[in-house]
């Protein structure tokens, strides 16, 4: 037990050092890309062609296999960013700040994807592109928060300062997102009777649930792939004057 714990601790410390992270990530990158694309492909293929047609919505429900995972990702990437921000604030680990910065555009694009696919799904089922439903509204607000984080980071020239500024803001965000959700719920009950529920029937048949699960796993792996790609760029760019980068790329040392 103690051995495993020590191994995990060492692994975390090693990952905190940019050169070790760079070496380690170049080893797993090909595997990660193959596995993530494979699982994503299997999940989507299963969802698009083999999953049974929904008896209420027909075939449109197949958007679910893209929409639901991207909505889940949009939220959990924010959680991830807040954890990174927390680590960055307390331990000043350089790599956590870089992670925060690299995760932000990915999270924003998944949230945007959830919004766009939700809107496309809304057209045939509800008849409109947009409904001021509680979930849609809070996802839109989440997107605005992502935009604020990215905007703040891009205006501060000093990268480590920008990281810390964004960490502060992401901690405020994680504290306030539950409040936003709750308040949007109340706002909706006050202003209009809830007519729509976004997800299809709560008891999903296993034939639909299994491909959805695979899609969610695939999305997570794909996020890991994108994060690794962005993070490697970030590491290289910030450490380009360090010795290890110069040795790696054969420049002057």
């Amino acid at each position: 037990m103690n051995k495993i714990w020590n191994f995990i601790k060492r692994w975390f410390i090693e990952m905190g050092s940019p050169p070790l992270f760079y070496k380690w990530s170049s080893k797993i990158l090909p595997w990660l890309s193959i596995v993530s694309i494979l699982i994503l492909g299997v999940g989507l293929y299963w969802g698009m062609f083999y999953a049974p047609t929904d008896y209420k919505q027909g075939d449109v429900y197949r958007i679910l296999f893209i929409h639901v995972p991207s909505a889940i990702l949009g939220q959990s990437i924010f959680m991830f960013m807040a954890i990174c921000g927390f680590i960055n604030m307390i331990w000043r680990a350089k790599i956590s700040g870089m992670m925060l910065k690299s995760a932000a555009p990915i999270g924003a694009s998944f949230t945007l994807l959830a919004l766009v696919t939700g809107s496309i799904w809304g057209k045939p089922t509800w008849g409109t592109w947009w409904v001021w439903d509680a979930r849609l509204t809070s996802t839109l607000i989440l997107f605005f928060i992502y935009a604020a984080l990215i905007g703040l980071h891009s205006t501060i020239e000093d990268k480590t300062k920008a990281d810390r500024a964004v960490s502060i803001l992401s901690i405020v965000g994680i504290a306030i997102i539950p409040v936003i959700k709750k308040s949007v719920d109340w706002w909706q009950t006050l202003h209009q009777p809830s007519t729509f529920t976004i997800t299809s029937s709560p008891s999903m048949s296993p034939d639909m649930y299994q491909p959805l699960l695979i899609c969610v796993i695939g999305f997570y792996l794909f996020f890991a792939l994108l994060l690794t790609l962005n993070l490697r760029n970030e590491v290289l760019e910030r450490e380009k004057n360090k010795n290890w980068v110069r040795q790696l790329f054969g420049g002057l040392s």
Partner: protein
Amino acid sequence: MLNGFDEVFLMDGNGPYVWSCLVIFILILVLNIFTALKRKNKILKSLKKL
């Protein structure tokens, strides 16, 4: 053959909605990867110059 294509593409009439979602999804993923790779090339080029 054409019949099969219609069945796959149109599904029960709402097929285009589903496929446009898939296209947008792939577009966003490819865009993400593309920008990452492009940035990597840029950084590598600047490293070579040093």
